């Protein structure tokens, strides 16, 4: 296995740039840890855009707003999802670039299994494929991948159009009881980027609060990059062993990156930055607004630290204080 070398290293700390340039290639499939709007590394999408990696396949049960950046620059070929937070902030669209792709084919048209294709598209770009699953089904794809078995059976969704239009889902018969059963194919992504509250140099990653699908994503992926809020000694990890979701034998790289989920919140670390979130989303609603926002917040920042500088370290510290009045890590 090509990744053994990385996983055996006693010190896996590297920069965000290196973790992406080393492990994520054009055409790869990747996933990001976390669920919907919390402990979802937003910085990953910005760095992938800066490195201009394209033709990517992204799979995530319920994604955050960050993927819209890569959809907006046409870097995503295929997007497997159960939920996209389009209408999460009332009248402000959560994924305006996806919406523009759907309606105008800009930067690429969209093909959504069986029901929806971008209409009147005259350009020559290949469509972005949008494939629907349920949250449980996507989690089962990673569970099967982690266990290295071809599929997982489940009892969700018979009679729905999810099963009808998604050609990779098979409705079969349970060979023991002869009842219908849904078979969900395994997924082994090339890279999983997982945000954790604490990690040590060897890559033991600890998660506090909800766990999402991260332990399975980390075991299914060929390469695992931990983005940690805090780098701690192994002794500190051993104080709360039940919170180690990802052991070092699954980890290829540790990136020490405080506020890596910003503007989203992380349990016990910082609250959602509602002002920055509003600013990002409102700015990205139009094509011109999106381009200007990319120039300012993505291409205009060398790395995540420059982004934090731009948000303001004092402001970030306020979101930390806000969270710690509600949740405190052990």
């Amino acid at each position: 296995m090509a990744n053994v070398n990385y996983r055996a290293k006693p010190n896996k700390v590297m920069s965000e740039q290196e973790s992406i340039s080393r492990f994520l290639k054009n055409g790869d499939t990747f996933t990001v840890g976390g669920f919907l709007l919390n402990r979802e590394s937003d910085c990953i999408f910005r760095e992938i855009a800066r490195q201009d990696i394209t033709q990517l396949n992204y799979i995530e049960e319920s994604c955050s707003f960050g993927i819209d950046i890569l959809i907006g620059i046409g870097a995503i070929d295929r997007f497997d999802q159960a939920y996209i937070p389009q209408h999460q902030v009332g009248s402000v669209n959560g994924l305006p670039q996806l919406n523009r792709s759907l309606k105008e084919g800009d930067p690429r048209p969209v093909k959504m299994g069986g029901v929806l294709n971008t209409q009147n598209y005259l350009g020559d770009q290949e469509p972005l494929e949008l494939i629907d699953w349920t949250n449980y089904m996507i989690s089962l794809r990673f569970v099967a991948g982690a266990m290295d078995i071809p599929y997982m059976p489940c009892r969700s969704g018979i009679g729905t159009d999810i099963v009808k239009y998604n050609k990779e889902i098979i409705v079969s018969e349970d060979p023991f009881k002869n009842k219908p059963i849904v078979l969900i194919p395994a997924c082994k992504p090339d890279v999983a980027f997982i945000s954790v509250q604490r990690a040590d140099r060897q890559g033991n990653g600890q998660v506090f609060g909800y766990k999402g699908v991260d332990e399975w994503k980390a075991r299914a992926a060929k390469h695992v990059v931990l983005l940690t809020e805090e780098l701690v000694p192994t002794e500190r990890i051993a104080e709360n062993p039940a919170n180690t979701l990802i052991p070092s034998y699954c980890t290829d790289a540790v990136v020490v990156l405080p506020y890596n989920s910003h503007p989203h919140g992380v349990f016990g670390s910082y609250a959602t930055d509602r002002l920055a979130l509003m600013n990002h989303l409102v700015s990205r609603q139009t094509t011109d607004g999106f381009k200007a926002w990319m120039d300012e917040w993505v291409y205009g920042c060398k790395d995540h630290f420059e982004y934090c500088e731009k948000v303001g370290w004092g402001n970030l510290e306020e979101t930390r204080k806000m969270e710690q009045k509600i949740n405190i890590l052990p």
Partner: protein
Amino acid sequence: MTETSSAHQVPEKSTPFSDVQLICCAASRQFCDRETVFGGVGISFLAVAIAKIVHTPEIVLMTEAGYVGFAGISSMDSPADNHGGKGAVLHQGLFEMFRDMQAGLVSAACLGFAQIDKFGNCNVTYVAPDIRMNGSGGGGDIASSAGRVVYVSKFSPRIFKDKLDYITNPGFLDGSPDAREKANLVGGGPCCLVTDKGIFRFDDKTHEMVLSEIYPWQTDKDLDEIRAAVPWDLTIASQPKIIEPPSAVEMDALILMDPAKRYQEADALKRPVGKIFLEGKNDIASYREVTKIFNNSMLKAVDKLL
């Protein structure tokens, strides 16, 4: 789980309540103590949060991201929200939540939707000709496996369809008596649809939607309008039960759960955070203002619930 329109309805003379208030308060009464209850996001979460504060303090709140038995100190933008962990007895994962649900361990759930048919099948994915909605999330799984599903929505002719544009959540499928059993689905299916124009339930035999409960101010003319808005020949109970209007305690709970005023102000930019954002301020003082809005309310709820 789709957020249903939160547009603030201009109160009619006879109803001093907004649609969100009516829906959340009526839906909050649909659960029993010690049941395990899955809350969605948006008004479907508000309904179960009010249930926990006002009616059934012993319900075990669950979210799909992995929070179990939590206090519910504020409305949820996402099932993974940090404050979902507050007071929780278990922080687990999404696969584990759905594993438990498929094992029949979840009594009830509350969900929103975009379209519903007479057998309680729902669409939250795609509205013809070209509108992509949020998609299933866990809705397709919850409708498959939860003991029963309480659906919530603002009443509108748009939500009732003879044929859905996309079936995301299985209801009673084609309505035949054993349709769910044949599909090997675990849960009991939809139990009711709570709207601001009444509560619809499903007939035990035909599995067809019936308007069975109405608000005290609804007249025969209102019922005719409801009938006209539904594309099939809607059955209305011969003596519909009367729904109690929202009580003061329920209304207080709703306000406590909604510090962002998402359900009291339709325009995101007119809400407290939107206003601070529009002032163009980006300093520590404005961050502290935001903190105050949310933390004051959440800490008040902590006092009440924990």
